């Protein structure tokens, strides 16, 4: 808590924390949007979401180690993860799409442990990062630094989000996805192949996670056990913003990023994960209590 006085003594530090928070928040929002898509369309909560992010990060890591420049590796990671997720849907996920949510949570939790341990077993539990080769920008006489790679991540996340929105609005498949989300039975009657739509949705989510993972690997670090925190962050953002509310997802993503940066600064970095998970509980209980005033609950 000693850092609190530091904040009021040097207000420019606030700017630094805010900026960092908003930049990281864009990536959180991107992953959360993927989770909301799967949740809304397939009625499935994907606990393995964070592991998909990690896998994307590892794809970029190995491509860069093989001699590729980092930025072009990100779309490749997205493509790889889309294929992986499409295959996962065909092998196992299609069986839990129309089951109850608890089954899907437990099954994807198993998947998450499987992927996490597989990474750990194959590549070890070292903390990895990708050297982006970009510099830093300095503002306010060097008091505020912004790594260019974070800006790249921010812009990349924004572009991907915009692309996704365009796809869901304009593309034929995107329209089929939205129709399935609104009313699966009616979509089926009108000739939408919902099984194909589910596979496409899961693959698109994989692509989003893959790209986000690449950005995470360049901007921060990846290691096998950090996946669950991304899942929880996405879940939190979706709960706050609601399904299919893009502006809300962006705003709560940024809010979460800022809150996390402040918590890391004030409580110390070792409590940052604890903060994320505690915040989840507080947000869930708080929002539920708020709804209970109207005799409702989170559904």
């Amino acid at each position: 808590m000693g850092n609190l006085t530091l904040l009021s003594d040097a207000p420019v530090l606030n700017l630094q924390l805010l900026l960092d928070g908003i930049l990281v928040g864009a990536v959180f929002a991107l992953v959360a949007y993927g989770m909301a898509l799967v949740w809304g369309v397939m009625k499935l909560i994907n606990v393995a979401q964070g592991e998909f992010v990690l896998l994307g990060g590892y794809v970029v890591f190995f491509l860069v180690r093989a001699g590729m420049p980092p930025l072009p590796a990100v779309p490749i990671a997205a493509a790889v993860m889309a294929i992986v997720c499409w295959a996962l849907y065909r092998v196992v996920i299609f069986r839990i799409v129309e089951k109850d949510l608890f089954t899907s949570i437990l099954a994807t939790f198993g998947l998450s442990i499987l992927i996490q341990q597989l990474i750990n077993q194959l590549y070890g539990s070292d903390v990895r990062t990708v050297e982006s080769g970009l510099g830093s920008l300095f503002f306010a006489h060097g008091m505020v630094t912004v790594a260019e790679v974070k800006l790249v991540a921010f812009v990349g996340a924004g572009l991907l989000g915009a692309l996704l929105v365009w796809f869901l609005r304009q593309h034929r498949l995107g329209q089929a996805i939205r129709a399935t989300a609104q009313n699966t039975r009616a979509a089926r009657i009108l000739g939408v192949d919902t099984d194909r739509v589910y596979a496409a949705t899961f693959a698109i989510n994989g692509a989003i996670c893959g790209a986000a993972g690449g950005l995470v690997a360049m901007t921060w670090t990846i290691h096998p056990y950090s996946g669950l925190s991304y899942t929880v962050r996405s879940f939190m953002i979706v709960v706050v913003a609601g399904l299919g509310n893009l502006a809300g997802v962006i705003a709560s993503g940024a809010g979460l990023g800022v809150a996390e940066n402040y918590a890391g600064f004030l409580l110390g970095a070792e409590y940052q994960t604890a903060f994320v998970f505690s915040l989840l509980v507080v947000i869930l209980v708080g929002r539920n209590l708020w709804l209970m005033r109207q005799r409702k609950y989170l559904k």
Partner: protein
Amino acid sequence: MSRPSTRAARYAALALVALAAPWLLPSYTTQMTFLWLMVVFALTWDIVGGQMGYNSFGNVLFFGIGAYACAVVQRDCGLGYFGSLALGTALAALAGTLAAAILGPGILALRGQYFAIGTLGLGIAAADIAAGWRYIGGGSGMVTPLFPGAVGARERFFYYLLLVVAVLTFATLRWLYAGRFGLTINAIRDDEEKAEAMGIRTTRHKTVAWCISALFLGLAGAVAGNMLGFIEPREFAFAGSTYGVWMVLMAMLGGRGTLWGPVIGACVFHITQEVFWTYLLGWQRVAMGLFILVVAVYFPRGIVGWFRQAR
């Protein structure tokens, strides 16, 4: 249902096997002790998960609280080994119950997937807080006092202690499920709105059910922490991705919402896990993830449920 006399004979036979086991197979005592721990895990999870329909991923929280509470009491109270162990275990059970009573009304108001993810967050947050808290040893954990006695006696002592906890849990649940309380929490599982409309105080009953679960988990945590002799926050006390998920898996494997299901599930699971550990060294955690996935997707009704369906 079978006649009471044959049922009593069956219970007696089981009790005899359980009592004689550490003398018959002395080299497997620790594994069998873990089996009783798993039985407690599955049974306590099933009170809230199976019978009441609230699928918790964070029940391991109470286990960890129990383990730490007991270790702190043993460190600070200054009684002899057995005196401090008894006091610590009692206080651990109390601490677990209290935690459930405090968290219950807020957390149990969440439904379905929100409850599941919320409790998952609770368990992991507890692990991270414990790992950063100096008073209880931080990330390096706590060491419990040394058992005064021979090596073999120590294993047997904790075997019987955990056996007592498991039997106590089973007997209490059997008694509770046979009565009004069991019917009430089943009513909450089947339709909470209707149960409330019938005049059942749902929040109170849900909290009490969670407290019972936490009580036995606290007991088990205290004993298991001492059995291992070393309490680590992430891998043992608040091990959400091992014990926390195993609880769910064992109850599901055996059959959710039945009395014997979790016991059978725990036995089958524990044997499977030991086999994985023996034959897939290094890959056992990968295999465990696959196992969870397979059970959740292909075998959600469990062994008891499957037999009932087949009949």
